[in-house]
């Protein structure tokens, strides 16, 4: 079982938090902080597994993480999950984020995750459900997400058009929106881990 999926940046700011077990908001924040603290002080070339998070789980649980550019993807899992399998999944996960968000934006970067956390949640929901892995096939995930987005668009219809226009205008002059932090090059680091079919 996956107990939690966290994405935060190099400064520990949460970009996505999905807990598959209930904690109240304070504890959740504490877990994110603690996890960040544990993960961030590790070197780049150490292993991707981490034990000893006190707040979440206990001895049966592990943190499995990957660090891409400015973001940490952290899965908290118990012993029923395969460690390397989850690593593969994170890779699929980030690839799907990249691919799906790429369709809406030209180059995905941390900011896209920040502004579209709801979309990220929807993507994640196609991949992991209630703490169990639902789908590992990237194409299948993307198809389902696209279909749902299409449905959303068709529902918005004409009424949605002005809103979209406005938000496009709002997005236009954003000096703070650097497009250069690309996490699309992630697969370079892990050439020996083929993704799932």
């Amino acid at each position, binding site marked *: *079982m996956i107990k939690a999926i966290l994405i935060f940046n190099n400064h520990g700011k*949460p970009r*996505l938090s999905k807990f*598959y077990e209930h904690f109240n*908001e*304070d504890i*959740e*924040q504490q877990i994110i902080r603690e996890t960040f603290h544990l993960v961030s002080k*590790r*070197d780049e*070339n*150490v*292993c*991707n*597994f*981490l*034990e*000893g998070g006190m707040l979440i789980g206990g001895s049966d649980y592990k943190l499995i993480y990957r660090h891409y550019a400015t973001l940490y993807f952290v899965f908290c899992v118990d012993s*029923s999950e*395969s*460690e*390397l*399998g989850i*690593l*593969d*999944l994170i890779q699929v996960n980030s690839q799907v984020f990249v691919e799906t968000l790429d369709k809406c934006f030209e180059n995905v970067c941390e900011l896209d995750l*920040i*502004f*579209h*956390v*709801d979309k990220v949640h929807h993507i994640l*929901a196609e991949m992991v*459900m*209630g703490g*169990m*892995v*639902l*789908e*590992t*096939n990237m194409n*299948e995930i993307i198809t389902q997400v696209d*279909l*749902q987005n299409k*449905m*959303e668009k068709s*529902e*918005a219809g004409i*009424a*949605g058009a*002005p*809103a979209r226009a406005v*938000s496009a205008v*709002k*997005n236009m002059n*954003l000096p*703070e929106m650097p497009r250069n932090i690309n996490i699309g090059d992630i697969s370079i680091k892990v050439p*020996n881990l*083929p993704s*799932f*079919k």
Partner: protein
Amino acid sequence: MALKIVKGSIDRMFDKNLQDLVRGIRNHKEDEAKYISTCIDEIKQELKQDNIAVKANAVCKLTYLQMLGYDVSWAAFNIVEVMSSSKFTYKRIGYLAASQCFHESTDVIMLTTNQIRKDLSSPNQYDTGVALTGLSCFVTPDLARDLANDIMTLMSHTKPYIRKKAVLIMYKVFLKYPESLRPAFPRLKEKLEDPDPGVQSAAVNVICELARRNPKNYLSLAPLFFKLMTSSTNNWVLIKIIKLFGALTPLEPRLGKKLIEPLTNLIHSTSAMSLLYECVNTVIAVLISLSSGMPNHSASIQLCVQKLRILIEDSDQNLKYLGLLAMSKILKTHPKSVQSHKDLILQCLDDKDESIRLRALDLLYGMVSKKNLMEIVKKLMLHVDKAEGTTYRDELLTKIIDICSQSNYQYITNFEWYISILVELTRLEGTRHGHLIASQMLDVAIRVKAIRVFAVAQMATLLDNAHMLTGNTQRNGICEVLYAAAWICGEFSEHLENPMETLEAMLRPKVATLPGHIQAVYVQNAAKLFATVLKSQEGNTDSTTAQEASQLMIDRLPLFVQSANLEVQERASCILQLVKYIQKLQQKDVEVSEEVCALFAGELNPVAPKAQKKVPIPDGLDLDAWINEPPSESESEDEQPKAIFSKEEPKHSRPRHTEVDEKELARRREARKQEQANNPFYIKASPSSQKVYQETPGVEHIPVVQIDLSVPLKVPGLPMSDQYVKLEEERRQKERAEKKKKDKKKRKEKRSGRGKKHDSGPESEEDITPAHMVDIVTEEMPENALPSDDDERDPADPHKALDIDLDKPLADSEKLPVRSHRAAEVLKSPAEDEEGENVSSLEPKKKSSKEKREKKKDKDKDRKKSKEEKKKKKHKHEEKEEADLLCGQADEPAFQSEETNEVVTPPTSTSADVSDLDFWLSNAPVPSNTQEAATVAAAEAAPAPGAISVTTPDSEPEEPKDTEMEETKSSKHKKKKQKREKEDKEKKKKKKHHHHHHHHGDKGGEESVQNGTVEEEEPLPPMSNYCLLAENSYIKVMMEDADEAYDIQGNLQDGSQVVVSVIFENKCDSFLKSMEFNVLDSLNSKLQRPEGSGPHDSLTIPFQLPPGVSNEARFVFTVQSIIMPQKLKGTLTFIVKNEESSTHEKLDFKLHFTCTSYLITTPCYSDAFAKLLESGDLKSSSIRLEGVNMPFHHLLARICFHHHFSVVERIDSCASMYSRSIQGHHVCLLVKISSQTVSVDAKCDEPTLLGNVLDEIKQTFSQC
């Protein structure tokens, strides 16, 4: 209207959406909290509007704020509103918000049941999907109960997208509502073979998750998973299955044997590291399960360890980590194999990666021995000094203590050294484990008598330097150590060199800053010290020291009398008064020391933690019997405080009565006294407790754990002390300790003959091992107190409730609550409801759930009311309910019929499962089993072959009876052998698996003996699975009928495979090796040889046979045509090796493939059978058997058993039977009997095959 919509959407354009919120927060870095609070106010305004779009936008923003740590539970009701929007866009937002912030105690969840149900049955698959996703995060027991049936129907939805989600969510439903597991399980199992890989994967996921916690219930699924494992290409699924097998193999070693081959194939073929690693892991699990108790497998373990070493040495840190992880699994069962890699593990301790260091630490636990313990701990102590983070340092500390104290300090040869280590550990600042060190100090000082002098000296030093430990008292756990130090100094104060000094140290004003419980110990032990001081001054004419001591006490104690801690206060004031009185007596020159010492006299004995539980219950005392009849129902309901014995006998779960009679009271008092007498922390008044302990008759049963080392010698034998001295030198701060030790050594040497054994280092090591303790652990524990047992299982673990036997047929009462109840209820008036309740009160479970539902209904009403008040669109709500009702009723019949179907089917299929598993497993070559079988065979055959022929027929008549019973139960007729096993299973349902093995073994033996004797005269009749193939003075070869065939369509285009299992038994006294098996291939049948070898090459048999041992090998043959029986000539060559010589030997044999062996027992239903016969494609033939002198069912059983048929239908003395060949030929038989004449009419689509099969049947019966 349209204008209004446009206007609304234009308004919305300028509302803040999620992006604006995020942007705003980023622009207000300084006053983020303030900005967010204004945003929340805005959101509250938005939520009050009627426009659902505005609400959805607000909820979306709240979801974001929730992630930042803001509590948004106040908006729960609005979230429910957004969830119930008809638009997918908003619905999705609502469900997302709900999944992020709803949980079991969110009360509005009650209101969502109908909405969720409606969404689940929505025609739009994404509505359903979104509802399932949301539900998976916030499902409650109520929701699970109410929706279980709806979700179960979705498991058979036409869209795979819905099916996979429905399957996956069932796991959550099971957790919350365990009753649903059994009714839903057949369908879940079905989904393992779903055509869609996603659904399949989901089902595998769920079952693996279930099986992980209760593996034994899922053993019967092993064949199915095995099939999946060999067919699936989805790595994720494979990983899950392989992990599951890893959990199953310890329960069923035969399974492991079967797994090895496909796992090895996967290892060679896969390119995914993740899959490869899991395969290796499971192979290890298999080897461990196989090798327990079989020393010859340790070689393969060794091999595994070698391979893991390669992983650990890999530069990829992930592999290194995983290698260590896998290593720790081996360590548990084969510590020796791992120990040889100590160098590597120690090297990993220096790794820069903390995760790897922690893994290595875990392994260290199993690596220590008496020899290297000091060295390893020294290394760890260095790490402790270097460690920067407290987590890692604490981990090191606990590991050091774990390592040293494991199996009762087995590896510690020098306790002085250990005490110094503990003292050194107290210098760690900020550790959380002070209490751990303290309990170790206490334990060692109490249990190792000879170390007390040293320990007391060390503790006195600690007390003296207490200020070093208490730097920042509050958050410093290390001051717990002082608790131990004070107690040790007090209790063993007779060993103190200068008790007065220590007394002074214990009464310093600074002590008052320590935590209360420590102060209390200080005060109490100061009194003990005081007594010692008085005693030491006894007879001394100059009484100044004694008076000084009294004065010191009187001066310092008032500080403690004022303590806020009640315990401290009370003890201090008691002792103060006592000392004042003593002082008075001292002034009158009265000898008081003896009386004062009497207060604290007596020896303390360490008691095993579970000792109390193990006090045997005296004969004739039934703890569950009523002592007095319960006066009334109501009173007996208040549950008795759990008795100490309750854990021991979980089966007697009746609530115990409150009243206790005198006998019981006396008994308890006695037990309490015993406990007190043996409790080191209980301060006794009676000096005679030791005696009591010896006199009381039943007390030997109290396991008193004691390492009494005083006689053989605890102080180190010379070689050890040398090491110790070396260590001491390295630690300069220990100088003082060393000096003392030298003193002591001198003293020791002066002592009488005790030191004799000193010179023999190893011997003294032996002495130190507290052998009798081990006895206590293994003997005194009641069966259920084994370390891994329910004792340790968390009672709150939700998986405990899921430990359900899935093979039992479903009872009617287990059906899932069907929606129809509810639909009816909504229509009913409250009065009617009550009636309904009365009716259903027959079933208490239903009643309660009904009540709950009613409650919910009330809530629904409330909700309606509140809606009215708020002037919401009430009619909408009603509409919804109506819609619910409608679809509820519409679906109802369908549910019902499905339900009944399921209730009918499981009994047949599940009971078949059990036997299937054994059947499946029995086909695997299992050396342990066959070996057993063969040895039994040999043992029986050797003394009296004649006796066997008597015994076998004896057992025969019983079997048919069994089978007859079975026949009536199910039409799926299996082999006799399986039947018998099934019977057995039913009888011994709860027994462990190895019972079955035994059975297996015995039976195998019986059969082979039977054949062995019969085969001498007869050619090769297909009597049973194993028939004698050939035999000479060296070796006996038995063959199993080739009745396992692989799926033809799946595996081969035009041929089929037949697997022949051959048992080789070594009958001579020499070693047989280099066995090679070869068969002269015919045009029709070919032995499958590994790729690259020529058509005449022989196959090397992958094992050797020591004398008297047998083993089994399997050979695969490819057969073109199966319509004719075939014979293949073959040779077995081998080398016979004994001490003097080795000779080449050869054995010729003929492999006989009967047509029967191409048949597979295949169940067939009578309607399908009838259709087959009607089809007219079949040719018919018939035979007559005269003089068959056996009951009809016996006859049928024989045909089933020997010729692989199954009974389709049986009416009186007439039965139809069916079988199928591996190439898909149907063979149908109609068997009739009338007074010793049996007529068999047969039909088959291949006349030659039919003729041959009939001939074989004839032959079978001509023999009996």
